């Protein structure tokens, strides 16, 4: 029993080591890959623009729920005007980065992992190796950077739409005073709150993209292997995002 636990602990440390080494390999190729910005912008489109609809819709609904719940709660203390502050801080610091990252892992992360896994299974990565083209530089790095760049942008869009959703419910339906909704928000959301959100989404971007390209690139070249890589991408990303979220939040306090 103890031995099994110890073995799985060692195995997970080894896995972490392999991921970190992969990250260094990606970083080593990044300067040269930056000279082919056309490849990166195509991946920003794939990871970012194609995730826009799901991010915007989710942002709207999360914001609306926040507006409703926040209103119900604040009303008990007779401070409905603080709704703007509550919604904005909740979205910018927590919900925006976290939910965006979770959705990103489900939408773009799985797409990345299965694409790379299938490229491995159909020998496309070996074919590149044989053409003396390093697949890490040509395929992995642009996808990684695309995800890293797309994540903070998506998170910002999520928060903005979320605040609009909260306003929609709070001000338009629940009749909170619009002037105090916006002015209290502007008065009490500080730059450090926004910075925290930006730092979080950047770190989540690196984590999600790294997990997706690592799992896809190292997938077993079988149908089962690609499926497993895709599943692992979502599961690992979700756990890592929530864990990192706690660490960063604790660090900022």
């Amino acid at each position, binding site marked *: 029993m103890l031995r099994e636990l110890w073995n799985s602990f060692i195995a997970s440390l080894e896995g972490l080591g392999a991921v970190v080494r992969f990250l260094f390999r990606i970083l080593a190729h990044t300067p040269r890959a930056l000279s082919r910005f056309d490849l990166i912008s195509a991946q920003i489109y794939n990871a970012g623009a194609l995730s826009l609809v799901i991010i915007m819709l989710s942002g709207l609904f999360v914001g609306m729920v926040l507006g409703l719940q926040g209103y119900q709660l604040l009303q008990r203390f007779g401070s409905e005007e603080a709704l703007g502050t509550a919604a904005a801080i909740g979205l910018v610091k927590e919900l925006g980065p976290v939910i965006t990252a979770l959705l990103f892992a489900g939408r773009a992360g799985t797409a990345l992992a299965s694409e790379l896994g299938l490229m491995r299974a159909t020998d*496309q990565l*070996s074919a590149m190796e*044989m*053409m003396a083209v390093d697949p890490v530089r040509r395929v992995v790095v642009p996808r990684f950077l695309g995800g890293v760049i797309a994540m903070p942008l998506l998170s910002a869009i999520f928060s903005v739409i979320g605040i609009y959703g909260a306003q929609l419910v709070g001000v338009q339906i629940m009749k909170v005073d619009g002037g105090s909704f916006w002015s209290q928000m502007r008065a009490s959301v500080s730059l450090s709150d926004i910075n925290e959100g930006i730092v979080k989404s950047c770190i989540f971007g690196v984590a999600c993209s790294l997990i997706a390209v690592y799992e896809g690139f190292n997938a077993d070249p079988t149908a089962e292997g690609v499926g497993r890589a895709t599943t692992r991408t979502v599961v690992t990303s979700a756990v890592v995002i929530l864990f990192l979220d706690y660490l960063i939040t604790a660090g900022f306090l």
Partner: protein
Amino acid sequence: MNNDSPIVAIRNLNYAVGGRPIFSGLDLAIPRGKITAVMGPSGTGKTTLLRLITGQLKADSGSVEVAGEDISRARRDELYVLRRRMGMLFQNGALLTDLSVFENVAFPLREHTDLPERLVRELVLTKLQAVGLRGAAQLMPSELSGGMGRRVALARAIVMDPEILIYDEPFVGLDPISLGVILRLIRRLNDVLHVTSIVVSHDVKEISSVADQVFLLSGGKVVASGTPADLRANPAPEVKQFVGGLAEGPVPFHFPGPDYFTELLSEDPEL
């Protein structure tokens, strides 16, 4: 280096996967400028041999010399320099599915050279013309048949003018017409481009019609070599079984397992 020395020389090669030896003490020399076929039953490690020759796998011991350099000791950058002199056709073509036929063939040029677009276009169209698919330049790989995909992959493999062309099971799953086309292309490209061709295959009849020299692998060793005619005349039972396509012989029909009756009569479901 003189022109008679073999372009690929394998000496005393040992390679094992998960403790199971694939090659033990393999020796093989592939002559320059010829079409050499490597044949053998499925599972004898033909594809593994190609991966060892191209440096995708590293030998456990022994040496694999390609164009005078030991590829099993080469660093990644040295390997890449060496690989620019090789073209490889994968079993399923391995075209990049997000690029058109034209861009697939142009891929090595764009990655390795800074040629002006006009020249890239000219080179790509010449190679596509050579495989008869200039008209398909704007199609995507998903719109091609298996045989066409392999011809595009062949055009891509020759676009950097390699010295060695490597074919991994080029005849698998082709209709007779595509098969004839690929056979003719292998012969023509070899003679016109003065390359060395290495063909891995288990299709005895097809490969015998183009190969200059044949190596027959079995059990991790070369069991016979020579011209296709030599092989047909070889009386050794391994060779006869393979060339004649016989079910029984040194390669058994049954995968090794416990005794049939013992297993049937046993109560233990684990046996």
